[in-house]
Structure formats: C-alpha cells, structure tokens
C-alpha cells in the first residue's frame, strides 16, 4: 500500500540531504527524508577509544552495523572478499542522521578556483579522467558563504593568500591556539609559507543556540558531548522538521528508485524500521547517500527503460571513485609539547595545493587531531619494532613529544576505480551490495609523496629532532571523503548529472552529495558538498514552483 505522495523524497540525511531537506521544506514543498541509520545525539558521546567512527576495531559507533551491511572488495590482484562494515577495506563513512557530519573532524574548506579547472590548468593526465567542472568557484561562492554562516564555521583564513575571492569573513573566530600551533606558526613563516587558523564547522563561541567547543581530546570520530560540532543533524535538519513540511524516517533502507515507462522517477521502494516494504511516491527524488551508496542505489534501480540502472546509459555511474590520499610526517620535539587542548588540528597552509613544479595539484597541509594512545601505537617509525620492550619504550618516551602534519592530496580520478553491484552477495534486505575495485593513479602517489616531504620540512624547521614519513599505498581510495561516482558535467556521454545535480536522463531525479564531484580538491570535501546542495536546492525550488508543485 503506497504512502501519501509528497513533493520530494530525499534518500540520506547527511551533509547533502540535510541541506536539501531544509531548503525544500522552507520553500513549502512536502518532503520525506529517509535515513538508513539512527538519530544519535550529544547523549551518545561515549569517548570510547576503541569504538568510534574513526577507530572502529570494536564496531562502527555510528553505523552501519557489520551484520546487515557487507560489501565486496576486489584488490589490485583481482582477489575479491566479502568485507565487514567496520573493517579496513569497506571504505565506510557513516550511517546516521547527519551522516559523516555527526562525528567528523569538521574541517571546513572552500575548494580553490583551480580545483574546478584542473584540466585547463594542468592538461590531460594519461590514465586519468581529470576534467574541468561545469561550474566555477564563482558559481559556488555565495553558497559556500551560506554554508559557513548557516551551519557555522570558525577559523581565520585572512592570512591565506591562495583562497578564492570571498565577500564575507567567517562567522566565528578561531579557537585560541594550542601549543602545536604556537610551534608550527613561526616555523612556517621562516620557510616563507602562509600559515593560518584552520576553518572548522565547529562553534568556537556560542552560535546558533549551541555552546562553543570544550577543547576535549575526543573529536574526530566521536559525537560532541556539548553539541559544539556543527553538522546537518543539529542545524538544517531540525529547521526542516520545524517547518512541519518535512518528515524524517530513520532506519529506512531504500531498495530502489521506481521509474515509470515514460522514464520519470515516481518514488522509492524502501524497508521501514520494521523491515516492511513500503512505497513512497514523490514528484521528485533526491539521492544523497554518499558516493558509494548513491552509485549503488542508481545501479540497483533497473527497469526496462534503464536496464543498466539510472543515469547509467554510458557507464559513468560508479566510475571515478576517489577520496583523498593522506600523507604527511611526524616530528619528535626535544621537549614535552602535549597540551591536551582539543581538537588538536589548528593550523594549515595552502602553499602546496597548486603550483608544485612538475606536479598536478597538491594538498593542504595541517597539524593533526589529538592522537589517542591506541591510535599512536601504529604511528611509530619504520625502524621501531611493533611490539615488545622497544615499542613500549618508544610509546612512553615520545607520546607527549610527537607532532603530526598531514594533508589530503588531490587524486587523479581513475575510470576503473569504481563501484558496481555484486552479482551474488546481498545485504540483510536482499539488496545487491556495493562491489569496490580499482586503485590510485601513479601520479597521485607521486604527488602525495612530495606532500609528505613538505610536511617533514615544516616539522624540521619547527625543531623536530627526528622525523618520519607517513606514505600511502596504491590501493583504492574512498572512505570518509568518498566522491566522484556520479560526475557532474555538461556532456551526458561523460557524466551522470548536469550542473544542477539533475540526472541527465531523468529530469525529476537528482544526486546531491559528493558523488557529483568531478575531482575532490586538495581539501576535506564537506563544505563543498553543502554548497552544492544549497545551489542545487535553489534550482530545484525554482523548478518546482514553475511546475506548480507547492
């Protein structure tokens, strides 16, 4: 029995879906927001070093659960395995209201102007589908600003000469600097670099009715005990619900998007929290499940008109899966420098995002979030044994003296790094699972290694008596920064959605999350996801009003 038809059904209450829900609901559209996970809150802050969204050896704290949500991972030698949601090859982000924004580290970056014009800037990269976006930084600028002010960003980017033009400053000042900042700042200046205060989606002062950060050591991967960390779960989603036009249904798993014989979406079929199959009809469907799950859903929504899934006439759905290649360095300082003042990450440079001789792109570099003891165990240098007295000595002698600098190297998209649906393995609800395969482009590895050396040089200048690198392997990249699988483009034969996130083939189907990113910048992607969501929503509202829907 079908539920009451609404104007819009949005699948996924994360960074993208949350913004769209609010924009549509405030414009008067009736919205159903479906989320496969639960709605956690500040009361779910556990400070559990072994069970959080970053270190999940004892399970994912904020979804999805291992039992019901397997995937298949194919390694570079072609061996395939069924992988658990909390395991290393799964490439998880989260499954909960707020999505990744509920527990992330919350770095809040605008991509740079060149990040939208990588092909024009750097030319063709053999073996990569590197291309220009169909939109520019200027197109997105007003929406970056909206995200910064509405969701809430603190920091100070005025000392960064590399960022794109902006009309307004950030709404909140940076947190008072920690000791790592005070050590790294003068060192960066001496090297001729341009350090500044990291922009973060985190209240540094009371804002939007929630308090400022309490400077604890459990940030990235954890719920925020005082609700100072800003995500869609505590900003736009409550606003959407307050309009009374939006209904949020949690623990609902969408099986497929239903289309009719005229090639238009009519709604979705989903399993509700009691695992009963429901049908939600809607005038338009918005897919915001994250790059892996959005591609999976489109591929699983087959019909006579769309035998290979939706938006997939030219085999671009699921392609170009990318994340960021994190590399960097550790530096051992001569004295104790640990001040336990969270979140830890505080200072950044954008000197190496572009203009690196002989290299395409680069990365923002910044100091890391506080390393919890068990996280630090694996961070010892290559020469130190992984166990025994030597390892224990190293932990004891260095834990309070180590600084880590790293950055998200921008990846060269690879067509064969992709998401498919597995022909055999199904999840608890009988839906074919995502099948991940591919690896990184060799030039990505090259660039990331140079970025690690830059991080090392910074730490050496800061007085590190010993440094060691963190480098990356060639395997598939996606994880918490997953992007690229439903590329935005003007040409329907080489993209999935147009510049307003509308699927080329199906005018009432939209993908609004990082799937649409052509490439992923040398920065954490969430603010860009939010900005694109604001922009796409504005267009959606105009289009709906034109069609007389609300």
């Amino acid at each position: 029995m079908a539920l009451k038809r609404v104007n819009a059904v949005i699948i996924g209450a994360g960074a993208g879906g949350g913004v769209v829900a609010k924009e549509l609901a405030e414009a008067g559209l009736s919205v159903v927001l479906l989320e496969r996970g639960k709605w956690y809150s500040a009361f779910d802050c556990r400070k559990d070093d072994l069970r959080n969204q970053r270190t999940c050896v004892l399970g994912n704290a904020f979804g999805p659960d291992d039992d019901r949500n397997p995937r298949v991972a194919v390694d570079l030698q072609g061996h395939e395995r069924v992988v658990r949601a909390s395991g290393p090859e799964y490439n998880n982000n989260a499954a909960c209201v707020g999505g990744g924004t509920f527990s992330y580290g919350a770095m809040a970056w605008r991509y740079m102007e060149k990040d939208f014009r990588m092909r024009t800037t750097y030319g063709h990269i053999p073996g990569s589908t590197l291309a220009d976006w169909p939109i520019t930084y200027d197109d997105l600028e007003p929406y970056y600003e909206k995200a910064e002010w509405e969701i809430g960003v603190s920091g100070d980017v005025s000392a960064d000469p590399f960022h794109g033009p902006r009309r307004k400053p950030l709404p909140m000042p940076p947190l008072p600097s920690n000791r790592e900042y005070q050590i790294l700042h003068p060192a960066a200046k001496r090297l001729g670099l341009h350090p500044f205060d990291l922009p973060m989606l985190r209240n540094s002062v009371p804002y939007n009715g929630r308090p400022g950060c309490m400077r604890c050591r459990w940030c990235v991967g954890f719920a925020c005990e005082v609700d100072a960390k800003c995500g869609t779960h505590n900003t736009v989603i409550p606003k959407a619900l307050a309009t009374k036009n939006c209904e949020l249904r949690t623990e609902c798993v969408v099986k497929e998007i239903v289309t009719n014989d005229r090639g238009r979406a009519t709604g979705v079929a989903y399993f509700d929290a009691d695992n009963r199959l429901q049908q939600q009809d809607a005038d338009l469907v918005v897919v915001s499940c994250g790059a892996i799950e959005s591609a999976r859903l489109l591929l699983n929504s087959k019909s006579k008109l769309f035998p290979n899934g939706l938006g997939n006439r030219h085999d671009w759905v699921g392609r170009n899966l990318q994340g960021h290649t994190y590399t960097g360095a550790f530096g051992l300082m001569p004295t104790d420098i640990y001040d336990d003042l969270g979140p830890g990450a505080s200072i950044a440079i954008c000197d190496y995002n572009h203009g690196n001789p002989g290299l395409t792109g680069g990365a923002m570099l910044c100091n890391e979030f506080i390393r919890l003891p068990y996280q630090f165990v694996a961070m010892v240098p290559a020469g130190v044994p992984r166990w025994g007295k030597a390892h224990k000595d190293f932990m004891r002698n260095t834990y309070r003296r180590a600084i880590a600098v790293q950055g998200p190297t921008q990846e060269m998209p690879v067509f064969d790094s992709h998401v498919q649906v597995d022909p055999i393995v199904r999840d608890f609800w009988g839906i074919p699972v995502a099948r991940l395969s591919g690896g990184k482009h060799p030039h990505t590895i090259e660039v990331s290694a140079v970025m690690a050396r830059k991080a090392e040089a910074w730490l050496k200048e800061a007085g590190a008596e010993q440094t060691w690198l963190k480098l990356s392997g060639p395997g598939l990249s996606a994880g918490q920064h997953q992007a690229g699988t439903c590329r935005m483009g003007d040409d329907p034969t080489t993209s999935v959605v147009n510049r307003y996130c509308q699927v080329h083939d199906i005018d009432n189907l939209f993908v609004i999350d990082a799937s649409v990113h052509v490439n992923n910048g040398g920065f954490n992607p969430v603010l860009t996801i939010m900005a694109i969501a604001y922009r796409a929503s504005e267009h959606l509202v105009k289009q709906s009003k034109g069609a007389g829907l609300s």
Partner: protein
Amino acid sequence: MEAICSRIIPEDQDAGAIQAGVVHFIDTQLTGFYKPLQKTYRLGIAAIDQTSVRSAGKKFADLPPDSQIALLEHIQQDADLKPFFNLLVDHCMQGFYGDPRHGGNRDRVSWKMLGVPYPPVRGRLRYDFTDPSKGEKPWL
C-alpha cells in the same frame, strides 16, 4: 597466551600487558565482538606452542623470556604464523592502550605511563565508563 602477551608488552618500570589485564580484555572480546575469532585464537595459540616444541623442545610458557622473544621474532617472519601473531599484537595494544571499559588497561595504567592527563577535560571530572553493549547510558 599470558606468556605471549607478556612478551608483546613486557612489565618494566611501568605495568605490562598482564598487570593491565590484556588477557581479560581478549577473553571478554572473544565472547563479544571478537567471537568469530575464537577458532583463530585456538588454532593460533596451538600453532605457536607447536613451533615452540619443535624448535626449542618446550611449550612457549616454559621457555625463558629471551628464548620466547627470539621465537616470536621468528614467528613474525613466518608466512603461516604471521597473520595470527599480528592480530594478537593488535589486540594486545587495544587491551593495553585502549579504553578500560572493554576489560583492559586496568586503572588506566598505560595512560598514566604515557602521561595522558586526568581528569580528561579541564574543569570536568566526569568520565564516561558506561558500557553500551550492556544498554547503559551515560549519566549527565
């Protein structure tokens, strides 16, 4: 298994794996989240003992510490034994450096060793030791 763990994280001027309750952590998790690994552990421990008897004539726990260390160093190069040994090392690290609520790191001994500040946040004494697997919720 106690013998292996006490070589992985030995006691010195600070507590080691045994004093911190690493074995208790592993036993607890083997009936919980790590239940699927029970067979892996049984076979893995047995394989280490077999290797010990074959190469040194005695079970692992009966060897002197230096011989135990030498045997483990040999095992971590062995293609067949390496996977279990690496798993055990990781679990020891979790049980030693991880949160006490999961059965290890008794009295936060590893955190005291590292100099991790307590109370955990300036001005806040409350520390969450609730166990979500028992349905406990933190009091506020």
